[in-house]
């Protein structure tokens, strides 16, 4: 299975999905007009990965901005992760948010309510970076 490495643009995030290490990361901004085009390949990849996941899978979201159409796909990705988790494979999601970004925190909390996989909220302080 191939890994996915996508460099971010002003509208789409960096993506790094590595099937060898089980480390998956989406970071940057996700505000495309058409989220389907961008996220569909990621969902298909996860379907394949879910049939043969690593012992431990860690998915990290480090988003600056996202639009509402992306949020539905982010949930779609989390539902794929949930399947891996419910099948008994060790897996975890980390949701990074800026200490001052109440909306990013709120969205993380919302997503936590919808899916059963554990989501850890990780606070970052950009001013200290």
């Amino acid at each position, binding site marked *: 299975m191939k890994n996915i490495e996508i460099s971010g643009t*002003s509208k789409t995030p960096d993506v790094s999905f590595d099937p060898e290490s089980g480390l998956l990361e989406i970071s940057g901004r996700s505000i495309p*007009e058409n989220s389907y085009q961008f996220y569909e390949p990621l969902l298909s990849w996860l379907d394949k990965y879910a049939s043969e996941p690593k012992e431990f899978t860690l998915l990290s979201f480090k988003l600056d901005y996202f639009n*509402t159409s992306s949020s539905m796909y982010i949930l779609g990705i989390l539902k794929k992760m949930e399947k891996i988790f419910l099948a008994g494979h060790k897996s975890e999601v980390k949701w990074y948010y800026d200490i*001052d970004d109440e909306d990013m925190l709120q969205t993380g909390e*919302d997503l936590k*309510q919808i899916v059963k996989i554990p989501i850890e909220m990780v606070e970052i302080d950009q001013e200290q970076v």
Partner: protein
Amino acid sequence: MLDVDEVYNILNEQNILLAHRGALNGDLIDVIVQLIDSKLAYSQVRVRVKKKVVNILVECLQNSYHYTSKFHEDEEMNRLVESPFLILSQHNDAFFLFTGNFVTPDRLNYLKEKLDKITDLSEEELQAFYIQSLNKDTLPTSGGAGLGLVDILRRSHRNVNFDFKQIDEHYSLFTILIEIK
């Protein structure tokens, strides 16, 4: 004749960061968002406010774009395609985003019905509605998720004024005024 003093005074007194009117496309939205992002990065705006302004701006522009771009090929609909507008201004700690576009009678009814369901909701109810709408079984294959207006209400803590004004028998002007602080 254009009165330079008058124009400058309007821009100055209203603290206008950006004003735009005309057809929208993906590249233009990109430029507008980058411009505002960069302007806010240079000012002393708090991260939470900056993020809200940019996110709400994106939602508004993409809402307008998804609706009006359906008519891009139709010359008779040119007035609607060219109608989107946006004014972003700043007053002390608050930002005001005034935006809108022409809508057909069908769209007017659709929006009124949609807004009836969400404008009177409390923050908690809005939150529950958002989660319920997000958690659908089918993902949108084109365009928006239909969640934009709900998101604007949430992020602005319901400081939004939606309005419709009849232009003629073909169109109404749908406007959204949002205070972000």
